[in-house]
């Protein structure tokens, strides 16, 4: 009964040698391929992905999924007796045309591959792209573009080509980072005393400021109105928000308490006598 039914299907031709039976077999191969791809992707994500870096796991997962789909598709075409060699030749010419038309897309794809291989930054890193003025957390390096969550909560998508050719400043590679602030004190005040009171205030009231290395001070400029001192404070990498935004407040409090003047811009005018 079943054999007779299949035989009848094989005799029902649709186009040329394409029969309902071969189409059915092709459909089963494709459906099997899709199911197999999904199962393989699920198993990979469950058992192997947690041990890998997130972006590597995502890319391998896509590779497994689409790899199985492509193999299934090739199985489908061969089951239908479709000769792909003709398509290959036509495809070659077509690829050249498409290549010119979609240069940026291909460029993004290739850049994505290079980004995955070179790994200038990984998922979750806090990075800065100084050329573009973008800072934030790297969410994903995808096939054509990368996504960064900026500190204001918005997500920005950057084409991989631009991302790859940009200067990338990683803010999470080192264990510690340095906060900086510039302050000007009056010429009449003692620089050593100002440095001493600022150091003391920083180490007393800023728990995330590192004691070793100690806060560093550089007299940057003997300015028009003030002696300008650059204050450099090291802190644990993830605690930038607990040091940098508070640094100027802490410095001003220290100088106020010690009676050290932060002068306004001023100009001395000498009147010439006749």
């Amino acid at each position, binding site marked *: 009964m079943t054999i007779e039914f299949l035989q009848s299907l094989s005799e029902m031709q649709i186009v040329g040698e394409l029969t309902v039976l071969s189409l059915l077999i092709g459909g089963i191969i494709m459906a099997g391929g899709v199911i197999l791809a999904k199962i393989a992707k699920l198993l990979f994500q469950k058992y192997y992905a947690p041990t890998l870096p997130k972006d590597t796991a995502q890319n391998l997962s896509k590779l497994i999924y689409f790899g199985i789909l492509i193999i299934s598709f090739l199985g489908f075409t061969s089951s239908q007796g479709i000769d792909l060699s003709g398509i290959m030749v036509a495809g070659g010419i077509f690829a050249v045309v498409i290549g010119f038309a979609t240069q940026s897309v291909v460029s993004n794809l290739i850049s994505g591959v290079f980004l995955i291989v070179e790994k200038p930054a990984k998922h979750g890193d806090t990075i800065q792209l100084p050329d573009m003025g973008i800072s934030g957390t790297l969410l994903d390096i995808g096939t054509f573009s990368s996504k960064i969550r900026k500190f204001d909560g918005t997500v920005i998508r950057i084409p991989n080509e631009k991302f790859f050719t940009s200067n990338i400043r990683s803010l999470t590679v080192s*264990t510690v980072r340095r906060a900086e602030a510039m302050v000007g004190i009056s010429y009449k005040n003692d620089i050593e005393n100002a440095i001493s009171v600022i150091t003391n205030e920083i180490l007393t009231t800023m728990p*995330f*400021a590192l004691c070793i290395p100690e806060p560093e001070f550089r007299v940057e400029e003997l300015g028009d109105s003030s002696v300008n001192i650059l204050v450099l404070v090291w802190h644990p990498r993830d605690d930038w928000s607990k040091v940098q935004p508070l640094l100027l407040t802490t410095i001003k409090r220290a100088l106020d308490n010690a009676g050290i003047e932060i002068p306004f811009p001023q100009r001395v005018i000498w009147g010439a006598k006749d």
Partner: protein
Amino acid sequence: MKTMRNDSEINFSNYGEYDINDNLDLFLPNTEIKIQRISDNTFSYFREDSEGKITEKIIPVKSNKLKIELSPIRPLNHPARRTDNIFLKFDKEIYLSKHSAASIFVHCPIEIGIFLIHDSNREPLDWITCNHLNSRFGLYGSPDTGTLCKYAKVSLATDYSDSIPYVEGVMKIVIENTLSSGQIVSKVIFPITDNSLYYENSKTIIDGIKITMKKRALVNIADVKIIPIDSDWIKSPTWEDNTVNTSMTMGLE
């Protein structure tokens, strides 16, 4: 409004277990803890610490009693947990001549943990530091490759009884110099997560370490091993996750 009393007027609470039926007030240097029953099976927890910061919690309980333990814990949590390592900078350098050994006691900062006791289990409820000024970070090494540590400048202690209540415990450090030249030791850096703490009344002692300075190939290294204390004092519960690591090589200068 600040409600804390002057420390000089207060008898501070000892470490140990406390049964709470209705309320309990614990007094520590610059810190006050109040636990009060607010319903049949619920207690409230209030703490004002040395920086004036107030923490309040609600504690639902199965039975109508609450049992807590106040005990010293490793100094890794204030102002935030960032590292397992501690950097003890000695206030005076120690000189060790070649092929010699010395045994010293040093003060080591501690924090205080408050644990809920369920059956025989202890669950961390809160932690405090009574001396936030001695709870800072330091970097051992260069900024690009260094190790972040909790940093404390410490003085030598006379013996285990020299512990400064609620603020510093005492740790024994055995230093052996197997090198063919004298060495000056001014600081020691090691992961403290395997060192247990023990308490009695308000005093604390900490598992010691043995540091062996030796030559491996052409490099001078310091091998650090833990020396567990055999003591009648009560062992503190563990606050943070503990990673088993009985031997380690870390920096020493």
